């Protein structure tokens, strides 16, 4: 049986409508052979977790440019733990100041990608850190 592809959910938590980055990442991951679902904008953390479980995602990529990341990213990680789905890796990106990065990692976000990141670096990160579940 061929190895299952890595399944990714790209999600926009909160009210931020800036989805240029989210769409570019979704497309780059698809081009790199992953299966990608993009939620669209204005998702609650609960909705994102439900979709991630439903879609059997290996990884959730959160994008937020509105400054609400400190509230919304940790909530996604928390709800995943509540639902015993913490094997789904969570990463994030957007307008995120350096000093927030450590706190977000402590809250369960595995990696934060700031502006200027190459899509290729994100692809490599995922390939090295996420194994598709069989």
């Amino acid at each position, binding site marked *: 049986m061929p190895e299952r592809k890595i399944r990714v959910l790209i999600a926009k938590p*909160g*009210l*931020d*409508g*800036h*989805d*240029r980055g989210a*769409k*570019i990442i979704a*497309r*780059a991951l698809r081009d790199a052979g992953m299966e990608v679902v*993009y*939620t*669209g*904008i*204005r998702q*609650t953390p609960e909705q994102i977790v439900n979709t991630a479980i439903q879609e059997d995602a290996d990884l959730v990529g959160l994008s937020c440019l*509105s*400054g*609400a*990341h*400190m*509230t*919304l990213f940790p909530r996604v990680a928390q709800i995943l733990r509540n639902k015993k789905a913490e094997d789904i890796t969570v990463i994030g990106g957007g*307008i*995120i*100041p*350096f*000093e927030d990065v450590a706190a977000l990692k402590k809250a369960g976000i595995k990696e934060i990608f*700031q*502006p*200027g990141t*190459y*899509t*290729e670096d994100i692809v490599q990160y995922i390939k090295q850190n996420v194994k598709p579940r069989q």
Partner: protein
Amino acid sequence: MEEREKLIAETKRWEETTFSKSVSRFPERKKKFESTSHIEFKRLYTSIDEREDDYIERLGFPGEYPFTRGVQPTMYRGRFWTMRQYSGFATAEETNKRYKYLLEQGQTGLSVAFDLPTQIGYDSDHPMSLGEVGKVGVAIDTLSDMETLFEGIPLDRVSTSMTINATAVILLAMYLAVAEKQGVKPEQVRGTIQNDILKEYVARGTHIFPPRPSMRIITDIFAFCKDNVPQWNTISISGYHMREAGSSAVQEVAFTLANAIAYVQAAIDVGLDVDDFAKRLSFFFNCHNNLLEEIAKFRAARRLWARIMKERFHAQKPASCMLRFHTQTAGSTLTLQQPDNNVVRVAFQALAAVLGGTQSLHTNSRDEALALPSEEAVRIALRTQQIIAHESGVADVVDPLAGSYTIEALTDEIEAGAAAYIEKIDAVGGAVKVIESGYMQREIADSAYQYQKGIETKATTIVGVNEFTITETPSEEILRINPEVERRQKEKLNEAKKRRNQEEVAERLSAIKKAAKTTENLVPPIMDGVRSYATVGEISDTLRAVFGEYEERT
């Protein structure tokens, strides 16, 4: 003609001798030089590139049709552009302080940033508002917040631009109500609401209702302001956000004007006379990195819009054909890497906007790839405009780059490229249709992806990002929104709700509902609603109940 033939022959001679000798020894940096819109830059522009049709018809004079050379006869020799920094954060008290600071620093107009709950019609205590209150702008729940926001700022003396779309009618009503309390008459009030819902579906994402009722609210505003708030710019038709989302310069002009055509048509369809409302339409463009392309873009947009208004909509008054616009430098070009470099980027972008004849300008701050700007960063951004205005000399001549072979050729190309897109959009039923089908969104996403690939393959150089990099030492002083803001704002909302007459609020909300179900103009009942301290969320919910909500295509 003889002169032209001579020049063609001379150019050929130059290419075969001087140029070819040189290029064989020192090849050019690239095989092809092109703009963001894939316009290929020629090596050399000469008078051969000049179109032969009439100078008067294509360029004309400043303040006259087709306004290629600017909308005012004296441009910045009379008065500089309005220096208008977009700002707002946390609570109305804090933002009010920033406004007073900016006015003291010589800023000449206000520009209000609202937080996302205000923009999307949720009160600060709504579950969807979690984490967003006071973040990208100031939180406004009731008229009480708006009173605080403009406390001590006389509304007959400043002009105020408000970046507000789906809930524009509510915030405009609040602004007029504050003016009323200050004793300022609606006809004295000057300012702009963005009120451009179509680009929200395409790029910015603060829509609430489906397109049709949204267009109705917009035409209600046109009609109300024409009679009551004659100095108000009723819409700011925006290419800015589509460009931020990744469009090219040509797409920015094309999609903005295609949306503008949809608004004008909608207003004509409800019986308004084009010459009664068109002079209050305003525009909002981005200014990106490519100096030459950007200068030409503004000139092309002015000429194309003038022609559309005259030829398509048969506008009679010159003011109806004038494309007046605000410019903001391109936020998406700001880099987190070596952030001081952004000061230089912003300066060039601002220069292009001025050389392109902007009416007002916002210059971004160097730290905005990380957070909202600090006060110091905003001051440098404002000083950048003041240096261009007072020191560079470019403001002393009207449309100073006109007649440059290059600029004129690019102006023609951008105009032609945008006109071709508009023709395509017309052929499939206009802007609303192509937005519903996702066409504009796809075109923009494709351009954005190509741009990103260009950076990663180094076809495009971004200084400090893919070339000339250093090991970054994060040491920035950034503006942080106190997490207490959300709690404080919810308290204020509760207090405002306690102070008001509940029965009066209920009555006025039901009057809004009634108007929404008919063709009655929505502005007067919404004005009554805000005067009773009905909240942004309550009024929006009332309209949601009648109009429904838009579902995004993904």
